[in-house]
């Protein structure tokens, strides 16, 4: 028997058939068996009728970072899914589907397992959409998973809806029995039961969007305003749901213009605030980005990227907003752009981002993407990072407070309206130390210099924590955002290559990055058409990468493609 250290499962079906819920239940079941899990999905911008799929990758004794081209099992919930995903099977893989969905013959040597899935649903008298739960049971049974673990996961998924939970558990059990019978003849030879180990530290299975929300909460987030936009909306849904438990304000206003202005108003009043959107919504927020900079009001802006320009591909992934968010707005001012590559980093950088916004009184942009935002990874339990103190003044001034006091590092003392005896004037027009408008050339330059002086400290922060590396070797693959995960997956099977992830995109950690790539063969991999990280490397490091691999069809790279590209580049 060939030893396998990972397993790929795909669940496919029409939109509205519970594909995503099933994938999370299955993923969680694997997590609770102590395994490393990754889940991603693909869907069109439709509510019903479109075809969608989720892929679950499970690691046995190794971490899984990304999806792969071929899977071991496909649970196909309709005939289209059978036909569509035969090609995604490994030679040893199989398709589990209902008897009635076997149409065209499967190609290669894949085996189709037609089972009476719908018959079971009918026997129990459950709604037809619950066929996915029977299928889940088949998979878990066939792989020798523990039924009680899976049933616990199902009950949690349907918490508060007792009858529905028990119905789904019953459907699962019937599928599980069916799956157990398959075990002997199952073409897949994955010793899952032997791999089961529930020892070790408990870990989390979390998506990038939730991780961003949790990271911001850990830094004291109390005000969140957001206009729905795929793929950032899950941040809004998550925070909206937990707002009453946490005593925070989560609000959906009339537009992104309103969202960011509300968040800036709340921050001026003293509340740590955040907005989340995708590139199109960010476009609308740009005028207020400059407002936050000019009034030195802290704000954390999350851009979960999708392909553009314009409406682009609403439900797909890209890394094409990098140059845009670095340069957006008229005028010149300091900002920070952070790009996490996995949910753990998303948590840490959302915390850091909100803290930096308040420490320096600047806009901070957290640049995520659909692949990171809507995919799930297994990560260590999030650390307790806490709130860094902002420079809030205890001094009481009678009358107007010098809110824009000229200081050595450019950061002025902060107070909020309502402070006894003191008044605070924020002004989007150029202003003096008290906020009053000015056109005096000396004062204008003094205030510009004051704001821009923050760059010095920010550059130091960027050099300190702006680059992450994994491995070592004479060649370097530089990447950013969720593409880091693809590169890590690819480098499992290529040696002598170091992965360098740029995390601080602005200010750019030029010295640190230079020290990591200097004298080495430099390759760049990113999910856009023009090589935006590569262009930043040229600009800041004055180095021409030896080659750049780009993808811009709305999909993340396959690690297999990155692996063979890197291998071919390193050989040469």
């Amino acid at each position, binding site marked *: 028997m060939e030893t396998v250290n990972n397993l790929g499962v795909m669940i496919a079906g029409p939109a509205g058939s519970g594909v995503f819920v099933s994938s999370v239940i299955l993923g969680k079941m694997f997590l609770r068996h102590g395994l490393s899990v990754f889940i991603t999905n693909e869907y069109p911008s439709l509510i019903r009728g479109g075809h969608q799929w989720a892929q679950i990758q499970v690691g046995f004794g190794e971490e899984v970072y990304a999806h792969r081209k071929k899977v071991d099992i496909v649970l196909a919930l309709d005939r289209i899914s059978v036909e569509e995903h035969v090609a995604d099977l490994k030679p040893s893989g199989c398709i589990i589907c209902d008897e009635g969905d076997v149409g065209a013959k499967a190609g290669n040597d894949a085996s189709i397992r037609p089972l009476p899935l719908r018959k079971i649903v009918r026997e129990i008298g459950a709604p037809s959409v619950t066929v996915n739960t029977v299928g889940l049971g088949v998979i878990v049974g066939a792989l020798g998973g523990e039924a009680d673990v899976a049933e616990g996961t199902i009950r949690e998924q349907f918490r508060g809806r007792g009858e529905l939970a028990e119905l789904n558990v019953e459907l699962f059990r019937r599928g599980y029995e069916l799956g157990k019978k398959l075990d002997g003849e199952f073409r897949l030879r994955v010793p899952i039961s032997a791999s089961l180990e529930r020892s070790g530290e408990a870990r989390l299975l979390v998506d990038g969007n939730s991780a961003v929300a949790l990271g911001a909460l*850990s830094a004291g987030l109390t005000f969140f305003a957001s206009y729905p936009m795929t793929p950032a909306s899950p941040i809004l849904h998550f925070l909206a749901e937990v707002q009453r438990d946490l005593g925070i304000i989560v*609000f959906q206003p009339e537009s992104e213009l309103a969202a960011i202005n*509300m968040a800036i*108003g*709340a921050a001026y009043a003293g509340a740590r605030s955040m907005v989340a959107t995708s590139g199109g919504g960010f476009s609308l927020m740009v005028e207020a980005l400059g407002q936050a900079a000019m009034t030195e009001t802290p704000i954390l802006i999350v851009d979960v990227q999708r392909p553009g320009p314009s409406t682009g591909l609403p439900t797909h992934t890209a890394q094409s907003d990098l140059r845009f968010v670095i340069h957006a707005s008229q005028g010149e001012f300091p900002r920070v752009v952070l790009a996490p590559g996995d949910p753990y980093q998303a948590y840490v950088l959302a915390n850091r981002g909100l803290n930096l916004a308040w420490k320096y009184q600047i806009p901070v942009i957290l640049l995520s993407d659909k692949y990171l935002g809507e995919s799930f990874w297994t990560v260590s339990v999030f650390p307790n990072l806490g709130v860094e103190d902002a420079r809030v003044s205890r001094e009481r001034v009678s009358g107007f407070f010098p809110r824009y006091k000229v200081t050595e590092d450019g950061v002025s003392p902060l107070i909020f309206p309502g402070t006894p005896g003191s008044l605070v004037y924020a002004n989007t027009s150029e202003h003096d130390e008290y906020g009053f408008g000015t056109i005096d050339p000396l004062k204008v330059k003094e205030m510009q210099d004051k704001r821009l002086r923050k760059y010095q400290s920010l550059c130091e922060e960027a050099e300190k924590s702006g680059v992450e590396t994994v491995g070592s070797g004479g060649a370097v693959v530089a990447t950013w955002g969720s593409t880091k995960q693809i590169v890590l997956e690819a480098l499992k099977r290529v040696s002598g290559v170091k992965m360098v992830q740029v995390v601080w995109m602005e200010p750019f950690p030029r010295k640190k990055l230079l020290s990591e790539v200097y004298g080495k063969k430099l390759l760049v991999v990113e999910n856009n058409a023009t090589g935006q990280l590569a262009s930043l490397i040229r600009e800041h490091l004055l180095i021409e990468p030896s080659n750049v691999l780009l993808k811009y069809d709305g999909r993340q790279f396959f690690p297999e493609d990155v692996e063979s590209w890197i291998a071919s580049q390193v050989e040469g």
Partner: protein
Amino acid sequence: MSLVDPSVFDTGRRPVWCPGCGNYSILLALRKALAELEVSPERVVIVTGIGCHGRISEYMKTNAFHTIHGRVLPLATGIKLANPNLLVIGHSGDGDAYAIGLGHLPHAARRNVDVKLIVHDNMVFGLTTGQVTPTTPLGLKTRSTPFGNFEQPLNPVLLALSSGATFVARGFSGEVEHLKEVFKGAIRHRGFAFVEVLQPCVTFFNTYNTLRRKIYKLEDAGHDPSDLEKAIKLSLETERIPIGIFYRTSRPTLEDAFIHAMNPPVALRQKPADTKKILERFR
């Protein structure tokens, strides 16, 4: 008479508006209203947009946020939600509120956020030297409509009424005492208060004599401000122009919807929320 002198709200800076501008009266009426209601300056936040009206934050000795063009209402909403102890008064012009910022007005009205919006409506762009706005009368020649305005002007009072505003009033800059009383009514009102102030632009569209001739006071006409249908009818009058309180009603505010986040207000929180329980769902 109040114990507070209106001059406590004076920054001592000399306004740069044209002599005879209606903004002087609005500034004066506002200071007087706040003084008579004995509001402490540190509790007040004036939010101003872009236009001649926007200079008012330079002359009001209160907290202030001089925001970007058209965004007075969302900015004011954020301040109020974060700290409802503050009295948030928005100032906007007819360009700021009805052209670039119109998308926010009906929403502020229907969600009944407890902020006050005072619109300085002179029916023309002043600061950018005399272009058409959404309240410019039909046919008026401006620098951007040299052959006459071809767009039907907006009816802001009717818009506010139909959007669900809980306090709708109109004032005239030529009637400072009356305007002061309207402002006092707006400030006392719990919920969104919309006050449209008709004023001349002495440089680009001097309507003083016309307005003076046409206006009459709703109190004198015995109008009952709880009557929405009557208020809508009155808002349609053009031959004579009613000023005063058109409509006033009571409804839960936006802050009431976030009562779970008000004790203490989020702006005054020291510690991050405890997410321990929520993290359990990812295990």
